[in-house]
């Protein structure tokens, strides 16, 4: 059976945060890029900072399943968010 992808923040020490109300800006020392991130991204990155997590685990920790009607939709959005964070070079898929 195929294992779900697990994600981890690439280099937590390279990320400089400024939390500005409902959104945050993040400076990546490695790329020199600045990213504008919504609160949910901040929470995801915080959870993946110390340990790799797959979509299931993240959704669980983020408690996005509090309302059954939105369960699938919310998890799809988190899945999309994980891919975006990976495209930005902020996270990496881990194999172990």
């Amino acid at each position, binding site marked *: 059976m195929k294992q779900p992808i697990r994600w981890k923040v690439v280099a937590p020490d390279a990320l*400089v945060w*400024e939390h*500005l*109300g*409902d*959104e*945050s*800006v993040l*400076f990546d*020392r490695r790329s*020199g890029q*600045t990213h*504008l991130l919504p609160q949910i991204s901040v929470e995801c990155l915080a959870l993946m900072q110390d340990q790799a997590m797959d979509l299931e685990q993240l959704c669980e920790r983020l408690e996005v399943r509090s309302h059954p009607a939105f369960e699938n939709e919310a998890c799809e959005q988190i899945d999309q968010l994980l891919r975006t964070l990976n495209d930005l070079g902020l996270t990496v898929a881990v194999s172990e």
Partner: protein
Amino acid sequence: MKLGSISRSDLAALLFSGKFRVRIGPFCIRLQSDNVDVTDLIRQLYCDYQLEAPAGISDYHLRLSRPRMLRRFYRPQIRFVTDGYSPFAPFPVDHAFPLFEWGLNWCVATYSHQFLMLHSAVVEKNGRALLLPAWPGSGKSTLCAALVHRGWRLLSDEFGLLRPGSNALIPFPRCIPLKNESIEVMRDFAPEAISGPVFTKTRKGSVAHLKAPAESVRRSTEPAVPRFVVFPRYMPGKQADLKPLPKARAFMKLAGNAFNYELLSESGFQTVASLIHSCSSFLFHYGDLDRAVQVMDSLVE
């Protein structure tokens, strides 16, 4: 010694010999030119600035020179040279003064990385500085000119200068280049304002340079504390509309229109963050200059 206190012939001699050095905000500029229009306009528009002694370290060495050969006589042109390098194609000789102004902007934007340089007008009133960051065509210069003729101090029409790690805006007051319709608008709004001639058919259309107020030049060593970031946009016929802008959005807009944010890397990030923390940020649409000034006044009163 103030530039305006020397005779025209002494000024022309300093310019011709390359011994002309003037202090403009944090920069000392050396200029060499034999162009009579430049001499006259510097005398008119820079009369309140301090001359520096002929010898000494200058931040920028500028030269306006006529190309050799045919272009000296046929449709004569003028070249802008800095440290032996000419970054632009020559201009028609009668556009020598706008070339000097643009050339100086180019030097500052290209080399002054000891500062975070925001592309922004900066004005101050009651000890509170207001940044007006905007791209060309947004009405930034017109609004800036209007404010400085209604009691605001001019720090700059073009550059919001901050030393990395500092939260003090450094004045760099110079002429405000008004373009096209703005020239007539400001003549009606502030008939007392002193401006140079209208240069037509420049790369930006018609341009006229509004003199920086003497008081702003006199106070050009006094930094100002940033309190407001307002992104202006002129929209004909539109009621003045000031909308709060979330700080993170303001951060990205401000960083995005800086001249050297990426180059300064983390220190640029930290400096913009500090600025954003200390300011309230807004989007501002306006269609009437008097009303726009009232709204900006209401921020600092």
